[in-house]
């Protein structure tokens, strides 16, 4: 294996780890209230620990099941025990396993945004184990690992539009429905408590996303046959995916800001941060199958549509607290389906021969086969994830339960679940008690009580 590529994969894997902790934790943390910021950040950290260990024990085996690659068994799942603990995986292939591990981690962590401020951390731990086992890994196997779906409907998903973003978006929406609204929502939502954290998180996500997208290169058998061909694919393909990821994200950020400027009169920093993420989500499946103009259009569409989509939760009454549906499900669907229009055979995946028969997208001389396969990939993910997430969510609801008490929700989940407060506002509100295990807790904040107008969505 080429040393340059191997070195890049070490870096890319670390980049994607950074996307969960701290980037996503900061992005989400800034959007919650002062009394629940630690809990939402902990949900990302806990997902990292739990999902990462599951992935090493049986996750890789169940999703990929071979030595550093998918086993292409054409079935719905692979055997969770065949490579248990990476039994037959060579250490020189560990980095490819770890790269996939980071994707599983962030997909689960993304879901936490839908159920912020209200669930017991123990229930979240159990959910992480069940969901990654029953939802993420089978879908990853079917789209990427050579499973049943990929064998029947070759589908373009360069870095996880279906597996990561549609998957997380559907799971978030279903869980928000099963678990229910926060107390007082939508009358009292609480505005984001620290948008500088959110801006830092969005910027770090953007940087980490280069590991996510550019690291998702898969070499063709032709490229592996000669050093010159390998270099040609490596350099040619990473250039395109890096460029597409960049320009789509820029376009989405500006498009979201433009929608706000027209609709509300002012472009907001939260809108810019959200637009960045919407663009990154939409270009994730498509960065290897479109050209620069296609990436620009996909980003612009994703930014504008997601800016509108985040308001729908107020119309349907779904407390998807941090808009996992509005950003990740919507952006993921846009990215997956627009490949059917903007996909071109001159793109990296086109040159690699990964397009289904029928040519490129509708705008590039192809017939509807590509769009149809993309559509089926979206439907497959939504159905599998929707049904199984509902079952897992209901099972937890009727056994250990999801919710903290209403009183604890009002006082703040940080103290209830972790015994801590994120910020020490005053010098006189507490005192250190030597040798004692409990102190005095002062809940609430001193400034303002923002109230959202009923039905104030666009």
């Amino acid at each position: 294996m080429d040393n340059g590529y191997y070195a890049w994969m070490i870096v890319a894997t670390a980049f994607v780890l950074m996307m969960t902790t701290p980037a996503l934790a900061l992005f989400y943390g800034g959007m919650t209230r002062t009394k629940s910021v630690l809990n939402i950040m902990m949900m990302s950290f806990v997902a990292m620990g739990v999902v990462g260990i599951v992935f090493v024990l049986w996750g890789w085996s169940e999703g990929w099941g071979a030595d550093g690659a998918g086993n292409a068994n054409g079935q719905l799942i692979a055997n969770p025990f065949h490579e248990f603990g990476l039994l037959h995986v060579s250490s020189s292939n560990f980095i490819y396993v770890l790269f996939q591990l980071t994707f599983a981690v962030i997909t689960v962590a993304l879901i936490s945004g839908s159920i912020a401020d209200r669930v017991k951390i123990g229930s979240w731990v159990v959910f992480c184990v069940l969901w990654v086992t029953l939802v993420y890994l089978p879908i990853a196997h079917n789209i990427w690992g050579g499973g049943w779906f990929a064998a029947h409907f070759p589908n373009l998903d360069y870095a996880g539009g279906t597996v990561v973003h549609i998957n997380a978006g559907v799971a978030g929406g279903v869980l928000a429905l099963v678990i229910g609204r926060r107390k007082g929502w939508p009358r009292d939502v609480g505005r984001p408590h620290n948008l500088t954290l959110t801006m830092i998180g969005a910027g770090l996500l953007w940087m980490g996303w280069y590991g996510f997208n550019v690291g998702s290169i898969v070499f063709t058998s032709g490229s592996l046959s000669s050093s010159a061909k390998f270099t040609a694919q490596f350099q040619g393909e990473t250039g395109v995916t890096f460029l597409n990821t960049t320009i789509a994200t820029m376009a989405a950020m500006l498009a979201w800001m433009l929608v706000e400027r027209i609709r509300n009169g002012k472009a907001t920093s939260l809108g810019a941060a959200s637009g960045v993420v919407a663009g990154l989500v939409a270009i994730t499946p498509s960065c290897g199958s479109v050209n620069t103009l296609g990436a620009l259009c996909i980003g612009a569409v994703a930014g504008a549509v997601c800016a509108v989509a985040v308001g729908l939760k107020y119309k349907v009454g779904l407390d998807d607290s941090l808009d996992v549906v509005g950003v990740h499900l919507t952006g993921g669907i846009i990215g997956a389906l627009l490949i059917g229009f903007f996909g071109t055979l001159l793109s990296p995946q086109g040159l690699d021969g990964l397009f289904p028969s029928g040519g490129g997208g509708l705008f590039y001389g192809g017939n509807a086969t590509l769009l149809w396969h993309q559509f089926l990939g979206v439907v497959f993910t939504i159905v599998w994830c929707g049904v199984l997430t509902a079952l897992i969510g209901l099972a937890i609801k009727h056994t250990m339960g999801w919710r903290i008490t209403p009183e604890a929700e009002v006082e703040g989940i940080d103290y209830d679940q972790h015994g801590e407060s994120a910020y020490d506002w005053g010098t006189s509100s507490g005192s250190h008690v030597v040798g004692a295990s409990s102190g005095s807790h002062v809940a609430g904040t001193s400034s303002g009580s923002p109230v959202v107008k009923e039905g104030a969505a666009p």
Partner: protein
Amino acid sequence: MTRLVTAIIKPFKLDDVKAALEGLGVQGMTVSEVSGFGRQKGHTEVYRGAEYRVDMVPKVRVEVLTDDHQALDIVESIVKAARTGKIGDGKVWVTSVDHMVRVRTGERDTDAL
């Protein structure tokens, strides 16, 4: 007789009020950041398309302990220094103080000023 003058003013007027009171020879004051609302009400912020009404407006509270004779002069100079003529300029009021002690010396009432 000891009086307490309390003023709620716009934060950016604090420097003017402080200078005016020092001009009157006032020896000390207590200043705190407060929030609340009167006729000015709050404002609206928009996050991801959802409107939030922020009811509380940030203000500064200035408290001055004084004697009977100077209380009205202090009120007048605060009003003069804090006025912009626009809504939200705040209020000033005077209350009687029943009893006062200087902590360091134990002096009482007007001796403690």
